[in-house]
C-alpha cells in the first residue's frame, strides 16, 4: 500500500498531451482553409508512423505498451513534425522524419521525459540538411486542390510547379541576397497581392490560429506565460531594432512574428518541458535565446527558417540555464513577499 499523499489530483500525462493536441486544432483548421487538406494527410502519416515506431521501441525496451502508447506524447511529436514540414512533402520524407524523431531523438535517449533535444526539431533539422529542396517546396496559397496535393505526396511530383511557391521567408531571403532587388523588400512584405499584410497571406492566419491555441494552453495552465512572452518579445525587439536601423535590409517585427514557425514555436515548441529550461527565470532566458538565434539564422543563415536550429542549440544550454537560475527557496529570499 502506498504512502501519503493517499489521494491525487486527477491529472495525467495523457490529459496534458490531449489538450496540447486540442490546442493545435485552430491552427490546423486555418492551414487547411488556406493551403488545402494535404496537411491532414501529413498529420495522418506522421501519427501512424509515430505510434508504430513508438510501439516497436517500447517492445524492444521492454516497457508497458499500452500505458506509454496512450500517453499522447508520440502524437504531439508527430503533429508538430507534420505542421513544420511542407504539407506537400513526399510521404517518405514525413515518415523518415517521424521515425528519426521517435526512434533516435526520443527512445535512443531513454524515451518519454529523457530526451535532451526536442524530437520534432531534430526531425526538421535532419531533413532540411539532408533534403533542402524538398523541405523548401511549400504549397501556393489558395492552391487547395486535394487531388493534386495527394499526387504530390504520393509520387507524382510533376505537378509541383503549379502548386508550390517560396514561403515569405524564402522570398525575403532571395530578395535580400540580390542587392539590385533590395528595394523590393517593401513589396515582398507588404504587398497584399503576394503575401498578405503582415506575415504573408495565409501564414498570418495560421499564426493567429496557433496564438488562439496558445491562449488555451495558458488558460489550462499547461504552459506558463514565461516562454511565449519571452520568445515573442525578444523576436519583436531584435527584429524591430534592426528594422528601425535599416528597413531595406531587415524585415520588421510584424513579419517576423507572424511568418514561418514563430507562433507555433512560441506556444508549442519552445514550451516543450522535457528539453527546455524549467525555472521561471530559466524559461525567460531559454525562450529569449531561441528567439534571438531564430532571428540570426533567419537573417544571416542558409536555411529558410531558423527555429529548429535555434531550439536545438538552446536545448543544449537548458541544463546549464536551469543550474544558474534556481529560484531562492523559502526563507532564503532577500525581500519580503508580495502582499495579497
Amino acid at each position, binding site marked *: *500500500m*502506498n*504512502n*501519503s*499523499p*493517499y*489521494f*491525487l*489530483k486527477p*491529472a*495525467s*500525462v495523457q*490529459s*496534458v498531451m490531449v489538450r496540447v493536441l486540442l490546442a493545435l486544432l485552430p491552427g490546423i483548421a486555418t492551414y487547411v482553409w488556406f493551403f488545402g487538406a494535404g496537411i491532414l494527410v501529413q498529420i495522418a502519416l506522421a501519427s501512424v508512423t509515430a505510434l508504430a515506431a513508438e510501439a516497436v521501441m517500447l517492445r524492444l525496451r521492454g516497457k*508497458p505498451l499500452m*500505458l*506509454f502508447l496512450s*500517453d499522447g*506524447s508520440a502524437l504531439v511529436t508527430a503533429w508538430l513534425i507534420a505542421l513544420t514540414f511542407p504539407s506537400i512533402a513526399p510521404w517518405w520524407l514525413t515518415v523518415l522524419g517521424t521515425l528519426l524523431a521517435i526512434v533516435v531523438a526520443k527512445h535512443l535517449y531513454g*524515451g*518519454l*521525459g*529523457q530526451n535532451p533535444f526536442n524530437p520534432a526539431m531534430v526531425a526538421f533539422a535532419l531533413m532540411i540538411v539532408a533534403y533542402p529542396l524538398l523541405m523548401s517546396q511549400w504549397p501556393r496559397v489558395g492552391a487547395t486542390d486535394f487531388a493534386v496535393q495527394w499526387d504530390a505526396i504520393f509520387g507524382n511530383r510533376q505537378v509541383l510547379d503549379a502548386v508550390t511557391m517560396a514561403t515569405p521567408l524564402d522570398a525575403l531571403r532571395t530578395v535580400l541576397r540580390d542587392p539590385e532587388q533590395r528595394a523590393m523588400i517593401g513589396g515582398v512584405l507588404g504587398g497584399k497581392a503576394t503575401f498578405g499584410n503582415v506575415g504573408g497571406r495565409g501564414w498570418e492566419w495560421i499564426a493567429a490560429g496557433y496564438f488562439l491555441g496558445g491562449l488555451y494552453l495558458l488558460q489550462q495552465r*499547461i504552459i*506558463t506565460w514565461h516562454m511565449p512572452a519571452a520568445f515573442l518579445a525578444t523576436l519583436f525587439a531584435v527584429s524591430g531594432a534592426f528594422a528601425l536601423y535599416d528597413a531595406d535590409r531587415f524585415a520588421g517585427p510584424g513579419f517576423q512574428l507572424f511568418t514561418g514557425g514563430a507562433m507555433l514555436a512560441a506556444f508549442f515548441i519552445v514550451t516543450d*518541458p*522535457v528539453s527546455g529550461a*524549467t*525555472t521561471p527565470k530559466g524559461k525567460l532566458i531559454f525562450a529569449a535565446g531561441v528567439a534571438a538565434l531564430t532571428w540570426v539564422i533567419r537573417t544571416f543563415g542558409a536555411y529558410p527558417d531558423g527555429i529548429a536550429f535555434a531550439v536545438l542549440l538552446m536545448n543544449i544550454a537548458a541544463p546549464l540555464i*536551469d543550474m544558474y537560475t*534556481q*529560484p*531562492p*527557496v*523559502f*526563507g*532564503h*529570499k532577500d525581500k*519580503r*513577499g*508580495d*502582499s*495579497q
Partner: protein
Amino acid sequence: MSALQRLFKFHGGVKPAYNKEASTGLPIAVAPTPTLLVIPLHQSIGGMPRPLVKAGDHVLKGQRIGGADGNASAAVHASTSGTVVAVEMRLMPHTSGLSALCVVVEPDGCDEWIARQPFDFRSASPTQTRDYLRDAGVVGLGGAVFPTHLKLNPGRQGKLDTLILNGAECEPFITCDDVLMRERAEIILKGAAIMREMLAAGRVLIGIEDNKPEAIAAMEVAARAANQAAGDEAMQVVSVPTRYPAGGAKQLIRVLTGIEVPHGKRSTDFGVQCFNVGTAYAVYEAIALGQPLISRIVTVAGNVGQARNYEALFGTPMRDLIAQCKPLPDSDRVIMGGPMMGLLMPADDVPVVKATNCVLVGSKRLFPPPPPEMPCIRCGECAKACPADLQPFEMYWFSRAKIFGKAQEYNLFDCIECGCCAYVCPSHIPLVDYYRFAKSEIWAREVEKEAADVARERYEFRLLREEREKQEKAAKLAAKTAAGREKAAAAIAEAAKPAATPEEDAKKALIAAALERAKAQKEQVHPENVSNLTPEQEAEVAAIEARRAEIREMAKPHLRQDD
C-alpha cells in the same frame, strides 16, 4: 477585527477536497475508556522517557509513568487509574511497524486523579515553569509533538512581537482543532494568555482558515472577551485563505506576518512563535488545573458511517475509536493524520498517542491506488505547487539516481513533506517517498561517517601512542646504558686519569640532553587532569568511556572493511 490584518501569500499549495463537514456535525464526545491502555513512553520529539513504574504497580490518573530524559523530552502519564500489567515492547503507531517500550495499564474503573494543584507560574521562574510543563508532558498537538516547554522561551531578545496560534487545520478530513475552537474557545485563549506572558509577546494572532466560519466566530467572541478583560487589543483572530498547507507553521507565520523562517533557524530569532490551538488548551489545563496531558481530541473520519471527534485517552486502541463510528465494510487501512501527510498504521489496534490528531479510515474507493508511475516530463507542476519554493523534480531526479549530494544542493532538507508535489504530479510519481528515502539514506551515511571518523581518529591516536611509548622506552634504555657507561668511564678515568677526550664530552652532552628531553616528555604525558577528581567528574569520565566503547563497537565493521 480580521479586516485590519494585512495578509501575505505563500508560494504554491493545493486545494484538495476538504471533506471536513462529515465530522463537524456532532459535538466532541468522550471516548469510552478501553479495557487495556497501551501507553507508549516515547510520544514526543526528543529523548525517550524512562519508565517510572513496573508491572504490578498501581497508578493514578495523571501519575507520571515516564520521566523526561533530559530537557529535550517530555514526560508521559497514566491516562486513568489502574494497574500496570506490563512494561514491554508493543507495536507503535508508525508506518515502519517497529515496537517500542509501552506501559500497559489495566484501568480500575475508578478514574481516580492524582492530587491536582494549579501551578503558580507568575511566582515561579521561567525555567521552573518550563520544567513543570515538561513534566506535565505538554507537547505540540498539531501533529509534530515537539516539546512545548522548549518553545516557550522568548530567545535572545527576551520578548517577542507575535505569538501565533495555529487554528488553520489545512489537512483534509481533520477537524479536531475546528471543534475544539468551536466548543472551548475561551480555554484556548486562556492558555494563549499564559503563553503570551511567558514569551512576553506583544500580540497574539490566531490564524484560522476561512473554511471554518463557526470556529472563527467562536474564537472572535472569546478574543473580544479576553481583550476586554485584559484591557488591550492583543488577541486578534485572522481568517486566512483556505489553501493546503496554510496550517504548516512556517506557512502560517508567512501568511500572518510576511516573515519566512529559513530551515534550521528558530522563529523566535524573527520575533515569532507558533503553537497549535490544542497546545494552548493543554498548557492551560496543565498550569491552571494541574492536569498533565493525558488525552486529546481525535477526529475519526474517512470510510465510516458517522465521523466524529472524540476526546480520547492516550493508549486507547485506534480500533476502539473506529468501532464507535460505524466503519464501512470495505475499509482496508487506518491512517494516522490526514490524507496528505498521514502515516499508514501497521495495524488497527495501535494506540492513540499525542500525535494522533486524526484516525482516518481508508478504503480503495476513498483512496484508490495511484495510477501507474510514468516518467517525469519536467512539466514543473510540482515546482508550482511547492510551498517551500523548491524544485521537486530536480530533487526527485537526484534522489532517484542516488546522487544525494546534489539532492541536498537542491535543498532536500528544506522539504516539509507536505505532499503537494506528489498530489499534482501528472506522472503520478510518489515524489515524497523519494525524498524520505534520500533523507534517510543521507542520515544513515552521516552516522556511518561519524563512526568511521571516530574509529580512524582512535586508530591514528593509537599509532601515535605506540610511537611515543617506543620513544620513551628507547630513552629509558639510553639513560640506563648511559649510566652504565658513565660508571665505566669514571672507572677508566680513575684508572687512567687523562682528561676526557673532546669526543667523549660531546657524547656525554648528547646523552644528557636526551635524558633531559625524556624527562620533560614524561612530565608532559603524565595525565594531570585525572588526578584529584570529584565523584561527579569521575562519573562523567566513566560515561564518556562508556560512550567511547559504544563507538568502538559501532566502528568495528568499518575497521574490518579498512583491513
